[in-house]
């Protein structure tokens, strides 16, 4: 049923992306990763389709960074970026896809 | 049955109406109330409500065991629309009823509500209770000094798709 096939694609994609850092991440790595995630999430905002999970990943990233755990902070920021990018993709895809579901 | 009842003010003659008006024969005799246990007089049964399990609550409240009886008609939903508001009611054809209680086995404390039924008051009560999770719900009726009960399982879970 189309309801399930599509909704599984996105969460699965997000889980796939838990990157494992090779060497210890620095604060600079965190800043770039966080900036990328934040930018993608802002774009999702302009498309009026941000996800609550992106917001919480960003929050976790900042919390980890504040605690000095930059490995975790970068990983969380990367996940936030992936989620934000997926939400942007969803918003763009839906610009046309919604018409197919309208009751005729 | 009128599905959309929009007359707000006038009292409703709906299917539940019948529960309230169960006529009870033979109320003439004045029951001897042995004030042995808290349920008989009006003091708030503190420890019964503090009891965790159903058995302890019944012991604290009545001090005697209850036996299942088909004369106790317990009305409870199969799946509660929401654990916060579960409409439960009980009625009975038993006579000389002095107390009615509702217990939810798996709630943090089993005794939910207990009602003193003076002479002249019908042995039927409707109320809305809270249930933590799927659990057996028991109604107990004290009639002529003996305890009768009926039990039903009510499924309870949260709603919505998770958020």
């Amino acid at each position, binding site marked *: 049923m189309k309801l399930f096939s599509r909704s599984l694609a996105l969460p699965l994609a997000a889980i796939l992306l838990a990157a494992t850092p090779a060497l210890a991440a620095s604060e600079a790595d965190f800043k770039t990763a966080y900036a990328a995630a934040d930018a993608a999430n802002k774009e999702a905002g302009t498309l009026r389709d941000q996800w609550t999970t992106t917001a919480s990943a960003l929050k976790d990233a900042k919390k980890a960074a504040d605690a000095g755990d930059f490995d975790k902070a970068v990983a969380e920021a990367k996940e936030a970026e992936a989620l934000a990018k997926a939400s942007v993709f969803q918003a763009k895809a839906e610009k046309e896809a919604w018409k197919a579901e309208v009751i005729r | 049955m009128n599905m959309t009842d929009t007359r707000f003010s006038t*009292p409703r003659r709906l299917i539940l109406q019948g*529960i*309230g*008006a*169960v*006529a009870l024969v033979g*109320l003439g005799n004045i029951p001897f109330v042995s004030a042995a246990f808290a349920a008989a007089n*009006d003091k*708030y*049964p503190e420890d019964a*409500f503090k009891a965790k399990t159903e058995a302890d609550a019944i012991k604290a409240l009545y001090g005697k065991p209850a036996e299942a009886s088909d004369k106790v008609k317990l009305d409870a939903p199969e799946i509660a629309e929401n654990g*916060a*508001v*579960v409409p439960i*009611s009980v009625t009975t054809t038993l006579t000389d009823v002095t107390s009615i209680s509702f217990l*939810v086995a798996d*709630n*943090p*404390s089993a*005794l*939910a*509500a*207990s*009602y*003193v*039924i*003076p002479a*002249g*008051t*019908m042995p*039927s*009560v*409707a*109320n*809305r*209770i*809270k*249930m*933590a999770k799927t659990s057996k719900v028991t109604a107990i009726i004290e009639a002529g000094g003996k305890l009768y009960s009926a039990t039903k399982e009510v499924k309870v879970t949260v709603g919505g798709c998770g958020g």
Partner: protein
Amino acid sequence: MASTIRVRASATGDTTEVQALIQHPMDSGYVKDAKGDLIPAHFIQQVTFECNGKSVFVADWGTAVSKDPYVKFSFKGGNKGDDLKISWVDNKGASDTTTAKIA
């Protein structure tokens, strides 16, 4: 302040049906608030119903009675126009009373 007790008492023949809805949070003490702290238990413990000075119903409630609690019962011996006195007390000692006429 309007009473916290809403009552509908109607007599048909010699049987009076009583419905009461009481405005009260009925906090069980098991629920956490948004910040994660436990909301302290605050619930009505006893509601008494008297008609012409005689007790017709007493409700003892625990922590499992719904918010804005509702109860319905019937009794014999009440007539149209009689007074029905209802009062509740909660575990913090707060209380409220109202008197309704049987319709």
